[in-house]
C-alpha cells in the first residue's frame, strides 16, 4: 500500500513536471480550453481551405486542355480564353477608375479634412454603408444608370464603372487605415523643416503608407475577379472577347456560372474554376512581390 502511494506520488510529480514544461497548458483548466480551441480553430480553417482548393484543383486540372485557351468560343469548344481576357479587362479598367479616386479621397479625409469633423463622419458613414450593400444591388443600379440611362448598354464600360463604385469604399477604407497608421512624428518632422502639407503627404506619408495601400488593392483585386452578379447585369454574359470599350463580353466567374448553369459542360466549368483560382493566386503573388519591391 505504501509502495503504491509512493508510486502514485512519483507519477503525479512527473505529470506535473510535464505540464509545467509545456507552459501553454498552464495550471488552470481555462488555459487548456483556450489552447484547445485555438488549435481547433486553426485546424478547421486550414482543413476547409485545403478541401476547397483541393476539390477545385482535382476536379478542374484534368479538364484543362490547350483548346480551352483558343481565341474563339464555339459550341464544340467551350474556350475560356475570351472570359479570361474579359476578367483582365474589367480588372484593369476598374482599378484604373477606383484606385486613384479612392486613394485621393482617403488622403483628403485623413490629411486635409478636420479630424473628427461632421463632414468626415458623414463621408465615412456613407462609404461604410456602400461597402455593406450586396453586389447584385450595384448590378441593378449599374444596369439602369450606366446601361439604360447613359445608354452604354451591356458593356465593358458599364461593368467597369459598376465594379469600381463597388470597390471604392474598400480602397478608401484600407488607404485611410494605412495613412492613419503612419506616426504623426513623421508629419511633425516634415512640418518642422518648413515643408508644406502637400510635400509632407506626397514625400513622407504616402511612401510610408504604400505597403498598406497595396495590401488593400490586393484585397480588392480578389473582389473584382470574383464578382459575378453585378457583372452579369452590366457587362453581360456573352462568350466572346469585347472588341472595344462599349462592347459586351463575360468574365471567368460569369463564364463558370453559365457553364455550370447549363449543366452540359461540367468538366469545362471545373476547369474554369481551377483557372480562376490560379489567376487569383498568381495575381496575389505578383502584387505581394510588387509590394515587397516597393517597400525596399
Amino acid at each position, binding site marked *: 500500500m505504501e509502495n503504491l502511494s509512493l508510486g502514485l506520488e512519483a507519477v503525479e510529480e512527473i505529470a506535473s513536471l510535464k505540464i509545467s514544461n509545456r507552459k501553454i497548458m498552464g495550471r488552470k483548466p481555462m488555459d487548456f480550453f483556450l489552447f484547445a480551441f485555438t488549435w481547433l480553430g486553426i485546424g478547421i480553417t486550414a482543413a476547409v481551405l485545403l478541401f476547397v482548393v483541393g476539390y477545385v484543383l482535382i476536379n478542374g486540372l484534368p479538364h484543362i486542355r490547350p483548346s480551352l485557351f483558343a481565341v474563339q468560343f464555339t459550341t464544340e469548344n467551350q474556350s475560356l480564353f475570351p472570359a479570361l481576357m474579359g476578367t483582365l479587362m474589367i480588372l484593369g479598367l476598374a482599378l484604373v477608375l477606383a484606385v486613384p479616386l479612392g486613394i485621393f479621397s482617403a488622403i483628403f479625409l485623413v490629411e486635409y479634412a478636420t479630424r473628427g469633423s461632421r463632414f468626415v463622419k458623414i463621408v465615412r458613414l456613407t462609404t461604410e454603408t456602400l461597402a455593406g450593400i450586396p453586389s447584385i444591388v450595384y448590378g441593378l443600379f449599374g444596369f439602369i444608370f450606366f446601361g439604360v440611362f447613359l445608354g452604354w448598354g451591356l458593356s465593358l464600360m458599364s461593368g467597369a464603372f459598376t465594379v469600381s463604385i463597388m470597390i471604392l469604399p474598400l480602397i478608401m477604407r484600407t488607404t485611410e487605415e494605412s495613412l492613419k497608421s503612419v506616426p504623426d512624428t*513623421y508629419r511633425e518632422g516634415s*512640418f*518642422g523643416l*518648413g*515643408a508644406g502639407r502637400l510635400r509632407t503627404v506626397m*514625400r513622407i506619408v504616402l511612401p510610408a503608407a504604400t505597403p498598406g495601400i497595396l495590401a488593400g488593392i490586393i484585397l480588392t483585386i480578389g473582389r473584382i475577379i470574383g464578382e459575378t452578379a453585378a457583372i452579369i447585369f452590366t457587362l453581360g454574359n456573352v462568350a466572346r472577347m469585347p472588341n472595344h470599350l462599349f462592347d459586351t463580353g463575360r468574365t471567368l466567374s460569369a463564364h463558370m456560372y453559365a457553364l455550370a448553369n447549363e449543366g452540359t459542360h461540367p468538366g469545362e466549368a471545373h476547369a474554369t474554376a481551377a483557372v480562376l483560382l490560379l489567376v487569383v493566386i498568381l495575381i496575389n503573388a505578383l502584387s505581394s512581390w510588387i509590394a515587397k519591391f516597393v517597400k525596399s
Partner: protein
Amino acid sequence: MNKFSIKNMNLWYRDFQALHGINIEIPAHQITAFIGPSGCGKSTLIKSLNRMNDLVEGCRIEGEILLDGQDIYGGIDVNALRKRVGMVFQKPNPFPMSVYDNIAYGPRTHGIKSKFKLNEIVEKSLYDAAIWDELKDRLKKSALSLSGGQQQRLCIARALSVQPDVLLMDEPTSALDPISTAKIEELTIKLKKDYTIVIVTHNMQQAVRISDNTGFFLLGEMIEYSDTEKLFSIPKDKRTEDYITGRFG
C-alpha cells in the same frame, strides 16, 4: 541681443488655458532651458515658437511672440518661419528613408536640386551634428537601422540642414541612454556659437550642465526666469526652491 521676445502670452486648448501671461526674453547665441513638472506648459510654449501648435485642433494664442522684432503670428509664412526655427523632438523621428535622404529632405524642400550642393549640405550638417565620422560610410543605409542616440543626432543634423537661426529641442534626450545623452549635451553646447537654442528638459541636472538661462514653469505659469546659475543657487521663489530641491515634481 534678444532673439525671441514673448509678451503677455496666453494659450488655450479649446476651453483649457495651458499658458497664463508668459513674458520672456530669449537671448541669441545662448542656451535657454525650460524646466518644470509634467503638464506645466513648457512643451506647449516651445511648440509655439515655430507654430507647431497650429497643427493642434482648437489651439488659440493671445499676446505677442516676436522673432527678431517680427510677430510670428502676424501674417508671416509659416513654412519660412519653421525653416528659420528648427526643431528636434522628444522621440527621435528620422524619416523611413536613407541617412542621406533624411538630411537632403529639408534643402530639397526649399528648392535645392544640385547634387553637388546637396552632398555638401549633407556632409556639413552631419559634421556639425558630430555624427559624420560614424555615418559617412552608411549614407545609403536606412536611418531606422541606427541606434536611438545616432537617430537623435541625425535629427539634429536634419534640423541644421536648412540653416536655421534657432534650434528648439523638446526633451531631446528623454528617450536616450546616458552616453548618448552626454554626446547630445556636448553637441548642444558646441552649437550655441552658431545658433540660438531653446531646450525643454525634465532633467534639472541637464539644465544646470548646459544652459545659460533657465525658466521654471508650474501649472501654465512662468514662476521664475533668470541666469541658470542664479536660479539654481539662490532661487527667488519658494516654489522654485521646492522644485529644484526635489520636494515635488
